[in-house]
């Protein structure tokens, strides 16, 4: 965090990919439900995504893709194994510490943007900085970032005044504004048409590389996989290249 964060602080330009910890998962197992209904959502998963790497995960419905994001994003505690984000072990943290890891180290991009209805595009980003305690420094400049994702002309618009693709762009900027080490993206193109989907995934690839963020994207959309550095597939809770 020390050398990495000071050099990242300067501006929006790419930082050296090797400075950051990225994501490391080792032997992660997760069972959901109880009794007869127990499902092994993640079965001994090992995964390393380096800073600046853009990995995609594909797989049939119910194979455990969202579960993997939940564990990587400190939303769920695995039954076994460990998860390191930017070199920090988040596996056994209390829920209070997990919230802190999420706001300081992890960015989420949700299926349909999931923006806050009351906030303008600019305020979505400011709000993320407010939660992370980075309004006075430590994050990106929200205006510059919105400009960078092609939303500079819509900073004052609320979610209901934006198109699906524009919402997703704001959602990506919101996830990045706190300078997370890991970006977790859940089916970002589910609600978008072909051209729009391509734009969004291109943008994600660009930012993952540009900001040196370890990025994992779950998707059903095989057409966008060409933009990814790596494609992993998940079947019945097991992960393979």
């Amino acid at each position: 965090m020390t050398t990495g964060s000071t050099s990242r602080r300067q501006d929006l330009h790419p930082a050296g990919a090797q400075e950051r910890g990225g994501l490391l998962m080792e032997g992660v197992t997760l069972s959901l439900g109880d009794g007869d209904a127990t499902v092994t959502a993640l079965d001994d998963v090992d995964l390393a995504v380096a800073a600046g790497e853009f990995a995609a995960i594909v797989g049939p419905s119910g194979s455990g893709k969202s579960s993997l994001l939940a564990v990587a994003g400190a939303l769920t505690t695995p039954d076994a194994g460990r998860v390191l984000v930017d070199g920090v072990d988040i596996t056994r943290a209390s829920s209070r510490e997990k919230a802190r890891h999420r706001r300081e180290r992890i960015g989420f991009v949700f299926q349909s943007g999931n923006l806050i209805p009351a906030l303008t595009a600019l305020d979505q980003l400011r709000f993320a900085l407010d939660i992370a305690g980075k309004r006075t420094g430590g994050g990106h400049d929200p205006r510059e970032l919105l400009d960078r994702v092609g939303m500079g002309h819509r900073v004052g618009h609320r979610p209901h005044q934006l198109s699906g693709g524009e919402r997703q762009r704001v959602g990506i900027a919101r996830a990045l504004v706190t300078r997370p080490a890991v970006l977790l993206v859940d089916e970002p193109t589910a609600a978008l048409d072909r051209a729009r989907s391509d734009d969004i995934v291109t943008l994600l690839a660009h930012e993952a590389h540009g900001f040196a963020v370890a990025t994992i994207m779950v998707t059903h959309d095989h057409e966008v996989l060409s933009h990814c550095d790596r494609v992993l597939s998940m079947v019945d809770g097991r992960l393979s290249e």
Partner: protein
Amino acid sequence: MFLAWRELVFARARFGLMGGVVALIAILVVLLSGLSSGLVNDGVSGLQRLPVNAFAFAEGTQTDSAFSRSTVNVSQATAWKGRDDVGDAAPFGITLVNAKATTEAGAQVPIDLALFGVEPGSFLAPAVSDGAGLGDLDGIVVSQTVLDEGLAIGDTVAIDRLGTQLKIVGTTGDQRTFGHVDVAYLPLRSWQQVHAGAGPGDEARAGAYEEVTAIALRARDGDQIDLTGGDAAAGTASMTLDESFGASPGYTAEISTLTLIQVFLYAISALVVGTFFTVWTIQRKHELAVVRAMGASTGYLMRDTMIQATVILAVSTAGGFLIGVGGGAMLATTPMPFALEAGPLVFAALLLVGLGLAGAAAAVGRIVRVDPLAALGGQR
């Protein structure tokens, strides 16, 4: 704070509706509070303004009608006066009469009076703001409200049936009423005569000049009167001044009705606010899940909602009170028993805001149960 304020503005119609309900309740609370104060004044201000800590009534009188039923002997005052914790004790008489006043212009005005019989030299004798004090057997000192009705010092009052002529010699300058009837102080001897039903010039039956309603007691400075001990010694049944309010006509029924209505209003207000914030939280469940997934602590989100509740409650209560006090000021000029008093109003405002916050706090607990995991996937 960041989200709280922006959401207030964004959802202003919804917050405005709830604030409107709270403001309407606040108006009602002000009016009822004014009505309560007015009724208390009309009912017992005559007693409240007596420099008295307790009354000793006849043994065995019913509590709720003691002022009309009780008869004690003036000598019982002596028994009380001798006690260490009693600073002063004096005989005191109360009778309600119908009378006719004759104004200087010669007009006849019917008037009801609560006659307070007191010894002119005793500690019960009223201070006057205008005119003369008690002294002459036919001189009465009246509540300011009598003069407000158009009578003046110097006018005469004739008690119905008896024909006793009394003359207004002074006024207390403030409202003194008892059971919604204006108080007139008169010398104890004249009171005893009226009480015994003796007309002018008649000699009352034997013993009438020994009888009064109660013995008024004042504690020695810094002392608390031992009422039980005193009752045993003097053969009386005493009540503190506050307890004696319940012995004045209609007082308990009026006050408990109004209190009940107000309690309901406070409960309704707390429920409305609690319900609003419950629905508000449920509506934003997905949004809250997203914000928690982003790493906001539950404390951060609860604080935000409580800020919203505080702003809405403060603004709507203040608005309602302003309207209520404005309307109440107009009511206060009518003959309706209505009085706006700062103390009860401030208390009511704080209670309204406090209970609203309690209602919101109960709803806000739901935020803890929002699972940030729900932000993942398309589960809306």
